[in-house]
Structures are given as C-alpha cells and as structure tokens.
C-alpha cells in the first residue's frame, strides 16, 4: 500500500513534520516518517525541492548541525523581535570571550582559556555556557590533575545557524597600525 505515493504528497509530509518539530530534524528522523524504504538521496532531493517551493515565502528551509528546520527569513526579524520586547540579557564579555576560545580552539582546558585571556576563569561563566547547552566536557587531558576538556555542542551550532565549525566567521588577525 502506498500511503504517500506522489512527490507532492511526500513533500507535504516532510513539510508538516518540519513545521511542527521543535528540534531540527535529521535525515534519519525524516526517513522514519515513511513506512516504505526511501533512499537518502531521494530524501535530499525532496528536501531540495521543498526548499525551492518555499523560495518566495516567509519561511526558509535551512540546514544546521543536527538537521533541517524552517525559520523565518532574516528580513522579518525586526518585526518578529517586537513581539518579544523583553530583550534577552546580553552575555558579558567574559562569557563571549570564553565561548570564542572554546569555539575556535577546542578542545580546551580551563588553563588554556586562562592563558589566552590572562585572567582566571570565573566558574560562573562556565556554568552559564553549560546551562545554555553551548559547551560541554568532552574528556580529560592526560596531564596531572586530568583537567576537563571543553568543546562546543551541536546545540551551539544550531543556535548560531551553523552546520559545522568550519562555518564560524574566520578569525581576524591583529592589524598593526599603518606605518
């Protein structure tokens, strides 16, 4: 029995699943939508078509680290943010710099972070990053004290709209003042 036989219907199923999911959906997630076997290549093709179908609409289908999701096009951000005027609290520079060190130099220990920033790591900073699920411990460095090694999570990539760490903005190098 073909529960969803034609391409239009298959795309509709994918669309419904993606629009209602609270998490990005991976290819494996989406394959589970169908009882019949589907090639990953077919699924990718359907997703490409779906992306095209939405090209002129308010939502765009994007791929992030853990899969695909629909999100509002950037041009609507200004409007949408007005719905939530209680602006998110900005993270301190210490938090953002620590996050940047972990993102660009991972896996790193607290010691590595202190070396770069020149000051002790405030435990509160690490707690904030871990509570946000942007950073977690991926192991220990095999040196005395076995310090924890920190790395960024998939959730961090999802939240920053990235598929992988390669997509982080390139590091800028200190430019000496013009002579």
């Amino acid at each position, binding site marked *: 029995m073909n529960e969803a036989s034609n391409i239009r219907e298959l795309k509709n199923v994918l669309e419904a699943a993606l629009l209602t999911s*609270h998490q990005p959906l991976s290819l494996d997630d989406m394959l589970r939508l169908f009882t019949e076997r589907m090639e990953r290549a077919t699924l990718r093709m359907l997703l490409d078509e779906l992306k095209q179908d939405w090209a002129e609409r308010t939502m765009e289908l994007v791929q992030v680290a853990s899969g695909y999701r629909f999100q509002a096009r950037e041009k609507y951000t200004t409007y949408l943010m007005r719905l939530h005027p209680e602006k*998110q609290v900005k993270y301190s520079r210490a938090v953002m710099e620590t996050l940047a060190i972990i993102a*660009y130099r991972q896996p790193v220990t607290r010691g590595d972070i202190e070396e*770069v*920033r*020149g000051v002790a790591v405030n435990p509160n900073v690490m707690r904030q990053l871990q509570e946000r699920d942007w950073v977690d411990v991926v192991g220990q460095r095999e040196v005395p004290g076995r310090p924890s090694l920190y790395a960024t999570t998939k959730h961090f990539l999802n939240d920053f709209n990235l598929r992988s760490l390669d997509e982080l903005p390139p590091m*800028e190098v*200190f430019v*000496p003042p013009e002579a």
Partner: protein
Amino acid sequence: MIETQRNAKIKGEEFTTLPKDLYIPPDALEVYLEAFEGPLDLLLYLIRKHNLDILDIPMADLTRQYVVYVEKMRAIKLELAADYLLMSAMLIEIKSRMLLPKPAEIAEEDDPRAELVRRLMEYEAIKLAAQRLDEMPKVGDGISVASAYFEQISLVKPPEVSLDDLTEAWRNVLKRASHFQHHKVGRAELSVREHMSLILRRLQSARMLEFTELFDIAHDGIPKLVVCFLAILELAREGLLRITQQQAFSPIYVQINSDE
C-alpha cells in the same frame, strides 16, 4: 626591523609626558576596571589608544603607562590587581632583557617581546571573534524557528471499553452477589429511570466510581442489580456516562460524561 632607539619615541617624537587620556578621575576608575577583561585587555587598549606598533612595541613607554594605571587600580581594588601585577612584572622583565647588550655570538636571539606579542595577538583575535559571535543572529535572538502547533494529546487517548469487558464485569457483580443472596424477594417497583437518576446523583458527588461500587451487592437482590445494570447501560447509551478501563481486566470506572 627592531630599532632600539624607538623605545623612547613614538613616531619619531620624544615621549616624556603621560598622554592626557590616560588620566582617569579616581571616582571613574571602577567603571574602567569593569570595562577591562584583564591585563592583556588593558595592554591592548594602551597599544591601540596610542597607536603603538604591536610588532615593535616600545617597551619603556608601554610599561610606564601600564604601571601608572595599575598603581591607580591597586589603590582602589587590590584583589583585582593581582593578575595585573603579574603582567607588570613580566613587562619589566622584558624591558630589562632588552636593555642588556646581546653577546655577539648570539646574534639570532629571539626578541624578548615575542611571547608577549604572540599572546596579545591571540587575545585580540579571540576578542574580535567574541564580538562577532555576539553580533551573530542566534535562535531566540535574531532567528525565529518555525514551530507550528501540533496536537499530540491524541496519542494518549483513553482506552476503549468493549462490550465484552462490560459483560464480564457484570458477571463478576452477579457472581459476588450470589454469595449474599437473599431469599426474600421484595415487591418494590423497580424503575430503570429511577436508578438512572440515583446513579447520576451518586456520580455528581463522587465524580468517578468503580463499576462495582455502583452495586450494593450485600443488600440488593438480583432483580435490583439487573435494574441497576440496565440503568448504567441506558445512561451510557444516552451519552450521559463515560465508562473507561485502562487495560483488560483492570477496574472499570464510571463517570459523568462532561463533554456536553
């Protein structure tokens, strides 16, 4: 590349007085302390502010400016100055090493400033990267993810009760009733309708009763129990009662159908 005579000069000018912007009123200093993320950050600020060449830092100037700053800082917030004092010591050490004449045979000696420069550049890169990350749109702050409503409650709908379950339950009532059988058969007029009201009233106060609780096995004879059962069926048929059972053989519950 390294011109030692530049140590005391910036862009060829003799550098003897403290730059004006270095003076911070003591009251405002604490605000500034919050603004710096550490000694490297302060050094970068000084280098940027005075347009010094990071690849050819005039150590004497930088150290002097830095120490003045840290002294002020120390007067107000001692515990915070510890990291800064360590840096002072490092700056002074570099400065002294640069003053020492190089032995002729070690012409290729590393610039004593190399490590400091490396750290400053690394920190500057991270600082800029952090600013970029901060400015990037994030989910919940610049990115709005689609999340259409999907009613998932239907997945936990209450189990259906089959007629067989109900009959089975009824048989159990009868079976138990047989243990309490009375031999006297009353002449009381048994009205199904009356029992329907009785049952509804009981459920009004109790909200939910187990099926067997609706039967007074100890006192009522079989005819009355039958009437009671008919009343329940009639109420269910009219949609006034809801009869549910979690799983086979578990207790059957009766409650007022409040859907209407």
